[in-house]
């Protein structure tokens, strides 16, 4: 980490928009000299009016560009310091020249994440929000952006604060009962305690349950298409990818290697994997392909199991169906244009998995595919989900928190007699500390450094 990383006494500058050519490029200056440096760049002697977009020219030796300059005086700015935003035309060369000019006027190039670090250090955002900023910038699809945005707005912080407040109340009452035993107060009723802990546990678990979905949204998910040869896997892959990526032939064993394509399924980032058909084979290349197909299944978040509906199921189909039951499976019964040799209800090996019947050739039933897939993934109505946890660190902390809460809950009414309060409290304090860590109130510096080094310049 660069030695200047934690300094907020100088003025930093960076391009705030993603690299590459765009219609508009934004440059940000933050620090005590932000306004002075902006004045030098713009050749202005009159101060910029706070929070008012001002049309101006960037001057150096000759006129460079027309910009819109906005001055946000601290502490009411994103970083909490004086901040100037310059909106210029998006040419990388122009932006570079403006940066150079700013550096010549006394600014320093910002390190990755440094703007957000300053916002955090100045108490403008909490740790959850700081992480959300990184997610927002990294997000590829609208749904992902939405989840990150929720965190930025503090929805997660609010949900955790609500749980924390109730936990804090329980802790305070239990502590009082220990430190003031003789005051004639009845601080906690055992029945109330059990009920309240149950509520807190339920709420925390609900938050975590959303987390799984949240993680899929944030990281995107891998969906692997499996089935025996020639059932239509590659055809399905091409259909979903919207392009003829995979070679489709009538000859079994055409697909040998793994093929991947990232698609946007109603706002969900998804990496589709087409695989070789699974069967016993003596061909060395195909055998390697089958091996890779099996491995791809093991790491996938979900599978689409393709079956040929026009023929009776054989031992290979059943083996695939019974092997490794991923909790997120969708069965596609293809080639219904040729005929239906069996009914899904009659096949126990389907294990009650969701099934869609279709013909990829005629297009019959294909419309049902996307909704069925979203449902199988458990994200069918993402916009109605109020709070989402989308960060692996948060998920880990919430999991630990639930473990501590569950231990405390078990201890307050053990069949053989309750565990004394101070032991229960030990777990409740631990649980609370985990919640605090999600919010970053007492996060150790190692976590902070990890988070801030993930940032890209100028957010």
């Amino acid at each position, binding site marked *: 980490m660069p030695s200047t990383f934690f300094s*907020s*006494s100088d003025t930093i500058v960076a391009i705030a928009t993603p690299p590459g050519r765009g219609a508009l490029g934004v440059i940000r200056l933050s620090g005590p000299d932000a306004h002075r440096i902006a004045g030098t760049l713009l050749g202005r002697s009159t101060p910029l009016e706070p929070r008012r977009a001002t049309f101006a020219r960037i001057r150096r030796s000759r006129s460079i560009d027309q910009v819109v300059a906005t001055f946000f005086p601290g502490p009411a700015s994103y970083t909490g310091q004086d901040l100037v935003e310059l909106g210029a035309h998006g040419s990388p060369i122009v932006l570079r020249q403006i940066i150079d000019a700013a550096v010549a006027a006394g600014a320093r190039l910002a390190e990755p994440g440094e703007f957000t670090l300053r916002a955090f250090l100045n108490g403008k955002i909490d740790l959850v929000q700081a992480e959300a900023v990184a997610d927002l910038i990294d997000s590829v699809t609208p749904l992902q952006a939405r989840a990150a945005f929720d965190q930025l707005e503090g929805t997660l912080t609010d949900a955790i604060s609500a749980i924390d407040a109730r936990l804090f109340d329980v802790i305070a009452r239990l502590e009082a009962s220990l*430190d003031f*035993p003789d005051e004639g107060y009845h601080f906690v009723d055992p029945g109330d305690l059990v009920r309240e802990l149950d509520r807190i546990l339920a709420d925390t678990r609900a938050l975590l349950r959303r987390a799984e979905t949240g993680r899929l949204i944030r990281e995107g998910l891998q969906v692997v298409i499996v089935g025996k040869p020639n059932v239509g896997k590659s055809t399905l892959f091409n259909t979903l990818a919207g392009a003829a990526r995979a070679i489709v032939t009538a000859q079994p064993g055409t697909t040998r290697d793994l093929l991947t394509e990232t698609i946007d399924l109603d706002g969900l980032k998804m990496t589709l994997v087409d695989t070789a058909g699974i069967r016993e084979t003596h061909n060395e290349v195909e055998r390697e392909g089958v091996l890779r197909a099996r491995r791809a299944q093991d790491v996938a978040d979900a599978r689409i199991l393709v079956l040929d509906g026009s023929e009776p199921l054989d031992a290979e189909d059943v083996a695939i169906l019974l092997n490794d039951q991923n909790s997120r499976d969708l069965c596609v019964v293809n080639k219904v244009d040729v005929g239906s040799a069996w009914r899904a209800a009659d096949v126990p090996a389907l294990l009650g998995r969701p099934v869609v019947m279709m013909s990829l050739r005629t297009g019959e039933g294909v419309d049902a595919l996307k909704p069925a897939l979203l449902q199988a993934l458990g994200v069918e109505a993402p916009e109605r989900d109020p709070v989402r946890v989308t960060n692996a660190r948060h998920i880990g902390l919430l999991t630990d928190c639930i473990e501590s809460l569950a231990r405390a809950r078990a201890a307050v009414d053990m069949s053989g007699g309750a565990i*004394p309060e*101070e*032991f229960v409290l*030990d777990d409740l304090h631990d649980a609370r500390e985990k919640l605090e860590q999600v919010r970053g109130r007492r996060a150790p510096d190692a976590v902070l450094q990890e988070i801030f080094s993930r940032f890209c310049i100028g957010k």
Partner: protein
Amino acid sequence: MSDDFDVIVIGAGHAGCEAAWAAARLGSRVALCSLSRDTVAHMPCNPAVGGTAKGHLVREIDALGGLMGEAIDATGIQFKLLNRSRGPAVWSPRAQADKREYGRWVRARLETEPNITWICGKAGRIVIESDRIRGIELEEGGGFIPGRALVITTGTFLNGLIHIGPETQPAGRAGEPPSRDLAESLKSFGFRWGRLKTGTPPRLLRESIDFDGGVSRGTFVEERGDAEPVPFSFLTDAIAREPTSCYLLYTNEAVRDLVRAHVGESPLFNGQIKGIGPRYCPSLEDKIVRFPDRERHQVYLEPEGVESREIYVNGCSMSLPRAVQESIIRALPGLADAVVLRPGYAVEYDFIQPTELRRSLETKRIAGLFLAGQINGTSGYEEAAGQGLMAGINAARLVRGEPALGLGRDQAYLGILIDELITKGCLEPYRMFTSRAEHRLLLRIDNADLRLTPIGRSIGLVDDTRWSRFEARQARFARNREALQSTALRTPCGNRASALEWLRRPEVKLADLYRDGQIALEVQAGQEGLDLASLETTIKYEGYLRRQVATVERLRREEGRRIPEAFAFATVPGLSREVIQRLSEVRPDTLGQALRIPGVTPAAVAVIGAYLGRPMRPAAS
């Protein structure tokens, strides 16, 4: 120079007595200077020692070789283990003291110590030479006492001002003169200081109260204390005195109405008192005005000693005018004929902000000057005694050129007490609570010796008697554990299990197994309860204890990173001015301590951590 005392202790209250004792036992030539030899270890308020967390402090003082545990065991007249129905980490001993006997016992013990020279007089001006202690001048031409270290433990005496209704009187305690010169001398060094307030209830004439009648009419509830007292000291075999009773009663509407009618005459409410009082120990006026929804408040009648004619009215601390106090007392159920011997009063006093202190309790500004007890903003005998002990130890060590002894928050309540004082300072009088201990499960009364006696031994404070008792207790513990392991029991469902395994179940109690004769154990007379507790706790709650030990180790790694003594916080980039100021005042010695300073954010500590993690840049020219 040879005439110099090594350590001068000013004040013979609970802090001063422990300080003088510890320093003398460590070989220092000690001068113990106090206003009078009749008020040694005096209890100006509640005639009791211990209570939640305070009982822990006393056990720790005892485990290190201090006086308080033995003193109360010898002079206590009613013992009670608080929180007995709860877990072993919050069991706290408490005892009513025979107040006069207590003071006499402590004085007698100090008089056996040849290293202590008693000086009667009033300390005035502190004499220093290039920011180092030279000695102390007594007021009124009492002369100069030269010394290399000075421990000041003057309690509530610095500019003490007593209030009883509209009457005010400069005094350290009722009937004792305040210390003005000493206060001004301390302030002249530039210490940050503040003003606090505490109070005490009226005392009643014992013979004027019909206790038996009150009990039979149901207005009083008799409280007897434990039939089998748990002693404070690891050295005590048996509690000698016959238990005395206390009596519980409740305030009524008449009391409430009287307080409400006269609250304007209370210096607490009419602006006469500026000092801040303890929220955990409210006056009667406070209770009734601030908690109007509470129907009644507890009042305990406590004898101040076996022979004493005074009854302490616990729960009725007040500073109303004398006449109002009398009518309030007489309005209490069963006290219609009670005679008020002495009125309750409030006292305001100066204290020095303890953020001025190092962990050793030496001031940062003046080398060799130590402060301990209520002068540091604490309240309570046990808190005072604990600081006195640590200050006495460290004064002696300073004189001998030895490094200071500091206890960690994971080692002792004494460590927590001092850490919080020097880290946070005092905004109100400070009292210890078990909830202040984040590693509470490890800081139990039954293992205070395991935690601290080896430390006391290594610095030379634990004598051979205490040490051999400690070793015997450890050996006994090991043999008993062995016995539990090898004794097989038949469980109610007919299985066989070792007693040790069986004991892991929450409903199985070691005391039952032992009393039923199902298992043979070795116990020390008088210490039986705690011997069993140590065994049972370490077995039954092993998982909890192990997790807490793991936390301690993690914290030591994460937060224990040291900050150099002369570190210039202002050179760390990115810290706000307020944070730099807080850090520069407190000068934390570890990142962990920095994180506990109010107003210092985790982000700021992360910044310092990152800064310390790399070679420091040369100071800007």
